[in-house]
């Protein structure tokens, strides 16, 4: 496929991509460690995935197949726009099917379909610092990471239990990577945390406004923080998907009318559609 000749392949110039790849390599070498990088102005505002887009742009090759999801859905504005962007500036193939993609850029979800060694998942990260809100001094958070001084993170979980009786953090749930670095998994639901552990795919994280990149290499231990007597539990709405009937997938609550009507459906639209198609085929 061809791309818009007004731009370099995948929008970024080659030296920027090299700079970002160096940051990615360093991130892979030190799993969970936040690597600063020279984040560029992108043709969309901060908060729309500028970090993830720069990472994707730097790793994309002409033969890649790109999938972009936003809260699990392929058809929301953000996902559609980013997909269109890369079709235009990189001419790459795009897909909505998880298994077909080689690069998956995501905002706030990990697909239900297990990822493989052939795939890379790129997370859009609004705030890479897990100690943010607990320790306002950036220099101090860096020292805490350097010294693995993470008692404070448990203080937050302690406060959760003290206030709510259980760990109420339900997204962006802090994890320890490779037993060394405390990491923010981006605002994915805690339900998705176990998928990060020993994942065969490479996981890359880009924060455009905060100018940080970090990574979890394939088959790396990712453990959600918890207490012995309050173990980590991935939480899911106790329903079956109203469309495909799944009892395993993460569900979104959808309001259907003005009188309190609602239903629960898979957040991962690709997964849900495939299941519906398979069921129709079987009938």
């Amino acid at each position, binding site marked *: 496929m061809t791309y818009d000749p007004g731009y370099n392949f995948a929008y970024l110039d080659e030296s920027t991509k090299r700079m970002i790849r160096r940051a990615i390599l360093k991130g892979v070498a030190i799993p969970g460690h936040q690597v600063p990088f020279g984040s560029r102005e992108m043709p969309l505002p901060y908060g729309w995935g500028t970090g993830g887009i720069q990472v994707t742009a730097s790793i994309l090759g002409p033969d890649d197949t790109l999938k972009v999801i936003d809260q699990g859905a392929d058809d929301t504005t953000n996902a559609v726009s980013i997909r269109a962007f890369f079709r235009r500036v990189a001419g790459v193939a795009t897909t909505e099917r998880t298994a077909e993609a080689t690069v998956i850029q995501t905002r706030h979800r990990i697909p239900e379909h297990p990822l493989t060694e052939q795939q890379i998942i790129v997370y859009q990260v609004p705030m890479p610092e897990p100690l943010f809100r607990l320790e306002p001094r950036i220099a101090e958070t860096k020292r805490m990471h350097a010294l693995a*001084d993470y*008692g*404070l993170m448990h*203080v937050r979980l302690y406060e959760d239990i*003290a206030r709510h009786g259980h760990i109420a953090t339900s997204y962006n749930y802090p994890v320890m990577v490779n037993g060394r670095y405390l990491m923010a998994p981006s605002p994915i639901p805690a339900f998705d945390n176990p998928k990060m552990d020993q994942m065969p795919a490479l996981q890359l994280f880009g924060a455009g406004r905060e100018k940080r990149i970090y990574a979890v290499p394939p088959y790396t231990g990712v453990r959600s923080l*918890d*207490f012995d007597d309050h173990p980590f539990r991935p939480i899911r709405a106790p329903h079956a998907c109203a469309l495909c009937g799944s009892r395993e997938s993460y569900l979104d609550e959808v309001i259907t009318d003005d009188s309190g009507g609602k239903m629960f459906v898979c957040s991962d639209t690709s997964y849900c559609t495939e299941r519906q198609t398979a069921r129709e085929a079987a009938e």
Partner: protein
Amino acid sequence: MSEMPLLSARDLQLHFGRIAALDHVDLDIWPGEVVAIVGESGSGKTTLLRVLSGMMAPDAGRVVFDGQDVLAMGEAARRNLMRTQWGFVHQNPRDGLRMGVSAGGNIGERLMAVGARHYGNIRGEATAWLKRVEISPERIDDLPRNFSGGMQQRLQIARTLVTRPRLVFMDEPTGGLDVSVQARLLDMIRGLVAELGLAVLIVTHDIAAARLLAHRILVMRHGQVVEQGLTDRVLDDPQHPYTQLLVASVLAA
């Protein structure tokens, strides 16, 4: 009594421009010993505390804690000391507490920092320490910003002592408090120190507090230790002109 000082400083020197903040200061603290550093503001007391606890580097001199060179150790080792074997009680509780974290979380932080991972046990320990510092356990989930100054200071002490440090540095712990609140706090500190067998280095300009708490006193002036010895000896038979002035200035110490 053990044969080695817990903390030992030799020939500490530190200048701020032309002013000597520490002028050839030597100091030993033995296990279980409470040592007060007294002197007026600007005499170098707080600077000495900061240097001894590794928070500030002197121009010259040595500080050894339990065989380890404090000034040469890396930050990781120093922080580890700070959250296990040492404690630091600040004059202003805001400097020693997390004001946005509940009382229980404040006490639990040091436990969690050294690996405690059982919520029930952490909470139990926090409850016990609240009682010890005479704060109602019902306030365990309240934020310290809603506590009185005296309660905040008692909470800071609980938070500091929960991991049973061997040496506690205290910088004017009764500084900003009402006199009636001071007495209660001092008495509580006195009791805890004796009960836990802590070694304490307390900086104060309150001679009465020093008399109540300390086994031994160092009198500092212009960065020098001008007199030191048994608390009652220094206060009842002061030798140095400055110590005599200090003692004479106090109402019925």
